[in-house]
C-alpha cells in the first residue's frame, strides 16, 4: 500500500495546525471587535460558533454519504475510512450545535427547544451520525456495509425531514440573515466559518491517517501470519 513517509505527513499536519491556530486567533479577535447586537447583546456572539458548527455537521453528513457510496459500490477502503472519520466529526460538531443552539434560544426566545424545521432536522441528522458510529462499533461482521447503507439513507433524509417539519411555524432565523449583517459582523462570521472549516480539514486528515495506519497494521499482521505459517 503506497503511503506518505511519516516525516512529510507530520510536516503537513504541523503546517495545517499552525494555520488553524492562526485563523482562530484572528477570528476570535474579529468576533471580540464585532459590534454588539442591540437587542440580544453578548448572547448574539454564539452565532459565530453555532452556524459554523451547523455547517460542519451538514458537510460531515455529505462527506460520510460520499465515502459510503465509494465503499459500497466501488469497494473503496479509503472511502470507508473517510466516511467513518467524517461521521465521528459529525457527532462532535452536531453536539456543539445542539448545545450552543438551546443556550442562545433560551436567551432569545425564552425556551430551550422548539419543534421547528431547522432544529428538528439538525437533531435528526446528529442522531443519524450517532447511529452510524454505533453501527460501526456494534454492527457485527457486516458493520461497514450496514453503516454505509445508513449514511445513504441519512443523506436522502435531510431534505425529507426539512420539508416535513417546515409546515410548522418557523421562528428560527433564516439563512438570509448572513447577508443582512453589518460589515463588522459579516467579516467576523466568515473568518469564523473559515477557521472552523480548516479545523475540520485538519481533524479529518489526522483521523483518516490514523485509520490508514490501523489498516496497515492489520495487513502487516496478516503477512506475518502467512510468513510464520510458511516457516512452520
Amino acid at each position, binding site marked *: 500500500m503506497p503511503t506518505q513517509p511519516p516525516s512529510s505527513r507530520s510536516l503537513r499536519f504541523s503546517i495545517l495546525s499552525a494555520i488553524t491556530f492562526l485563523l482562530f486567533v484572528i477570528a476570535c479577535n474579529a468576533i471580540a471587535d464585532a459590534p454588539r447586537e442591540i437587542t440580544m447583546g453578548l448572547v448574539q456572539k454564539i452565532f459565530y460558533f453555532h452556524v459554523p458548527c451547523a455547517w460542519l455537521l451538514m458537510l460531515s453528513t455529505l462527506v460520510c454519504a460520499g465515502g459510503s457510496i465509494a465503499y459500497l459500490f466501488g469497494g473503496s477502503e479509503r472511502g470507508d475510512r473517510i466516511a467513518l472519520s467524517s461521521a465521528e466529526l459529525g457527532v462532535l460538531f452536531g453536539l456543539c450545535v445542539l448545545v450552543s443552539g438551546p443556550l442562545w434560544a433560551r436567551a432569545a426566545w425564552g425556551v430551550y427547544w422548539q419543534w421547528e424545521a431547522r432544529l428538528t432536522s439538525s437533531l435528526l441528522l446528529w442522531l*443519524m451520525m450517532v*447511529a452510524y458510529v454505533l453501527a460501526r462499533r456494534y454492527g457485527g*461482521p*457486516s458493520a461497514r456495509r450496514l453503516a454505509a*447503507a445508513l449514511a445513504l439513507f441519512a443523506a436522502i433524509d435531510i431534505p425529507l425531514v426539512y420539508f416535513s417539519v417546515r409546515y410548522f411555524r418557523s421562528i428560527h432565523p433564516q439563512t438570509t440573515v448572513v447577508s443582512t449583517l453589518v460589515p463588522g459582523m459579516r467579516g467576523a462570521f466568515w473568518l469564523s466559518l473559515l477557521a472552523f472549516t480548516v479545523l475540520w480539514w485538519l481533524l479529518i486528515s489526522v483521523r483518516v491517517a490514523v485509520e490508514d495506519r490501523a489498516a496497515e497494521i492489520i495487513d502487516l499482521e496478516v503477512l506475518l501470519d502467512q510468513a510464520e505459517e510458511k516457516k512452520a
Partner: protein
Amino acid sequence: MTGSFWRFTLLIALKDLRIEGRSREILYTMGFSAALVVLVFSFALASASDPAQGPILAAGVLWSSTLFTGTVALARVLDRERENESIRSLLLSPAPRAAIYAGKVIATSLLMLAVEILLTVLVGVLFSTGVFTHLVWLAVILLLGTLGFAATGVVFSAALLRSRSREALLGALLFPIVIPVLLAASRATACLFDPLSPDLDPVSFWTRFLLATDVIYISLGLWVFEPVVSGD
C-alpha cells in the same frame, strides 16, 4: 427479466407468508405486544383527557405502536433466514437480490398491516375516537406508512443478520431514518380522526408526501440491498 423479477418477488413473499401461516408466531407475538403498547400508552396518558387533543393523541399512539411492534416483525422475518443458514441458499438461488428485497418488504408490510387493523380498533376504543370515519383514506395512509417503514427496515434488518446485538441496534438505527414517515403518517391520521377538521386538504398533502417518501426509500433500498448483503 421484469416478469421473472415479479415472479421471484411473489414467490419469496408467499414463502414467508406461508411459513407465518403455519406457525403464526409473528402475528401472535406482535399482535399481543402491540396491544400491550397501546394499553401502556393509554394508562400513561389517561389523565390527558382534553377532548381537543384526542385525535392527535390517538394518531400518535397508533403510529408509535406500529413502529415499535414493526421492528419485531422486521427482525423475525429476516431472522428466519438465519436458522439453518437458509440466507445462504436464498442468496445463491437464481432470484435477483432486488427480488429478495421486494419479497421481504411485501411480506413484512402485509404482516404489519394485519396487526395494524387490531391496533386501529384498540386505539379507537381506548381513546374514544371515530377511527373509521374515512376508511379508504385511513387504509391508504396505513399502507403507505407501513411500506415506507418496511422498505427501510428490511435493508437494516438484513445487514444486521449476523450481529449479536441486532435487537438493540435495529430500532436505534431505524427510528431516526423513518421519522419523516412517522411524522407524515401521524399528521394525516390525526386529521382523519378529528371530527372537527374542516377539510381533507392536509390529508391529501401528507399522503402525497408519503408516496414520494416511499418511492425514494424503495428505490434506495433496491439499489443498496445487493451490496449490503453481498458479503454474506
